[in-house]
């Protein structure tokens, strides 16, 4: 096993990786930018290397600086987390050349699966069902229009490179297909430097179901069941759960087999996620493979009891998978809510700034993967995720109630968060009945405003806050506020 690794990331995911490394006795090198000097992944690392300017290209995306930091500190491997360089084939190739183990699949696999058309070809060959559409690119709008007629409208024009909702157009009818092709290609060219586009059938009421896989370096591949991630805003997931109510044992087994086949077809190693679309008639289609640890991996950890980061490290170190497919059982139900620094009343507009005060929820079956603390200034330069709140209970109803209670106990003051929005989503009829599709937010929560039913109490609290004065009882009360001090985490001790 590695003695020391470098984590090329920040925030909650860097901290998540640190936690498992600590348990395994692996030393951790964190890297950080100027604005992250007091970030939690720096405070908790064994060694920390400053990369420089906050601008991602100068810090967390700067391959030269990160490789240099790994060499200087003697880190044997690099964990990329998610985002930043996690799915960058060039970075994985650089690590391979420099003799540093990249904790993930090989650079060739990242490259193949990162190109959507290549991935579709690999899956078709491997017998994995793909969404009806083109398996080769053809820039001719007339050809694309013909293909669209064949598969039937509505259709989706997609960029072969990149992701994040860029270079995507939904086309309802033949009238607009040609101009949509041009617009999507232009957008893809600007965003990814590659204007290649292709066509897929569009499903408006579909579910987003993904399977977690683990593949070791000795040819063994297993899956760790599914996650349902249908609730999204701006093509970004905000609530995820496992298991999905849409699958029965039979369908779960079939999709699991397809996920394993997809991993094998691409020569996959390490932890990965195979995404599928599930239509109303329960047909499933391959969407893409995410060649990294997913943001929502904790729901899988909760229901299977497997530490995915530990598995990643074992696989990267060359150890064979100790788990067999039949070891993987679903226990209960888990939900994750992503807590971003954003304003749900205002189109989820970013809300960076200083966290005046925060108190994390606690209790049985509650886990908060958190990258911030009271007094921390959330920088403007990076993804606005603050933490992921995860709950685990015996069934979906119980875990929904547990999540609502945990969200009500989650206090973050100073910046805006979607906590009250998440509570209302979880309380809504379409959510509790499982009628959850990828258009959930647009359909049920457009122009959402919070239900302000305790106006009188809020006004009373305003006045009492003036009257009660400040800083009373501050000895015991400030335990979680403002500054992190070693004395807060110190247990019993004597001289």
């Amino acid at each position, binding site marked *: 096993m590695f003695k020391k690794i470098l984590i090329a990331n920040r925030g909650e995911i860097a901290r998540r990786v640190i936690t498992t490394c600590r348990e395994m006795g692996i030393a951790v090198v964190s890297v950080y930018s100027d604005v992250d000097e007091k970030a939690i992944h720096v405070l908790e690392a064994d060694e920390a290397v400053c990369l420089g300017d906050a601008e991602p290209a100068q810090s967390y995306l700067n391959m030269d600086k990160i490789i240099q930091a790994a060499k200087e500190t003697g880190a044997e491997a690099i964990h990329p987390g998610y985002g930043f360089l996690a799915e960058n084939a060039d970075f994985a190739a650089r690590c391979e050349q420099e003799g540093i183990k990249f904790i993930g699949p090989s650079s060739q696999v990242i490259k193949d699966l990162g190109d959507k058309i290549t991935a579709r070809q690999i899956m078709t060959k491997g017998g994995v069902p793909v969404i009806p559409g083109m398996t080769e690119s053809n820039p001719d709008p007339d050809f694309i229009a013909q293909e669209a007629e064949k598969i039937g409208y509505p259709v989706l024009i997609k960029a072969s490179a990149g992701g994040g909702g860029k270079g995507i157009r939904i086309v309802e009818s033949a009238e607009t297909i040609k101009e949509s092709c041009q617009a999507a290609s232009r957008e893809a060219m600007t965003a990814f430097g590659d204007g290649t586009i292709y066509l897929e059938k569009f499903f408006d009421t579909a579910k987003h179901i993904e399977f977690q896989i683990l593949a070791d370096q000795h040819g063994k591949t297993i899956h760790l069941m599914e996650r349902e991630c249908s609730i999204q805003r701006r093509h970004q997931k905000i609530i995820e759960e496992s298991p999905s109510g849409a699958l029965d044992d039979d369908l779960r087994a079939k999709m699991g087999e397809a996920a394993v086949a997809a991993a094998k077809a691409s020569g996959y190693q390490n932890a990965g996620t195979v995404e599928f679309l599930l239509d109303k008639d329960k047909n499933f289609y391959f969407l893409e493979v995410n060649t990294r640890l997913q943001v929502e991996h904790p729901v899988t950890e909760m229901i299977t009891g497997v530490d995915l980061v530990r598995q990643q490290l074992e696989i990267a170190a060359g150890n064979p998978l100790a788990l067999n497919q039949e070891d993987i059982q679903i226990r209960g139900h888990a939900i994750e809510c992503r807590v971003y620094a954003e304003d749900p009343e205002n189109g989820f507009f970013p809300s960076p700034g200083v966290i005046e005060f925060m108190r994390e929820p606690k209790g049985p079956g509650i886990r908060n993967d958190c990258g911030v603390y009271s007094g921390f200034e959330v920088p403007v330069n990076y993804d*606005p995720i603050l933490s992921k709140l995860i709950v685990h209970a015996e069934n979906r109803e119980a875990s929904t109630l547990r999540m*609502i209670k945990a969200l009500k106990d989650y206090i973050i003051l100073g910046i805006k968060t979607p906590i009250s929005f998440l509570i209302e989503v979880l309380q809504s009829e379409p959510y509790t009945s499982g009628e959850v599709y990828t258009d959930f937010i647009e359909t049920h929560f457009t122009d959402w405003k919070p239900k302000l039913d305790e106006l009188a*109490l*809020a*006004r009373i609290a305003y*006045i*009492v806050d003036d009257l*009660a004065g*400040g800083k009373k009882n501050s000895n015991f009360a400030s335990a979680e506020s403002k500054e992190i001090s070693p004395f807060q985490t110190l247990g019993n001790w004597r001289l």
Partner: protein
Amino acid sequence: MEYRLKIGEDTVPVEFETKDENGINLSMEENEYDINYSRISDNQIHLSVNGQRVNAYVAKTEQGKTIFINGVSYLVQDADDLERKRSKRKGGQDMPTEITPATPSVVIAIPVEIGQAVKKGQVVIILSAMKMEISLNSPYDGTITAINAAEGDNVSPGVMLVEIEEAPKENDPKES
């Protein structure tokens, strides 16, 4: 004592008198409240309101106080304070005529220069906050008189990034 407290668009007068060291009797919108309280920390107070026990979390912000009760956060403002501030600003212009970011951001581009004439709605600065791009537009036809930021700068709400002098209105553009 009396307060006028505003939440959203609604301003409500609240009257109260001290009952004892940690208690008040309060009336608001024809309801009477018997309140006991204790401060738990700088940001937390514990209340008993007509017997109902409540934990409220409070943070002071520039606009007022953010109050978090039971999973919902409320921005509560002192209406008298707001009026005092508004009269200080004189004229009480409500139009968003200031080119300032709504949230801390990084300057991506400034597509205008000093002395340049701009049209109402024209983009004068492009910002980025947490991977989202935001552009700010000129509120009126006018001329750029100052640019107080450069590309790559971190900027905060309240800072006037670009100053624009409004062009004199032509009362009768089509004089015969």
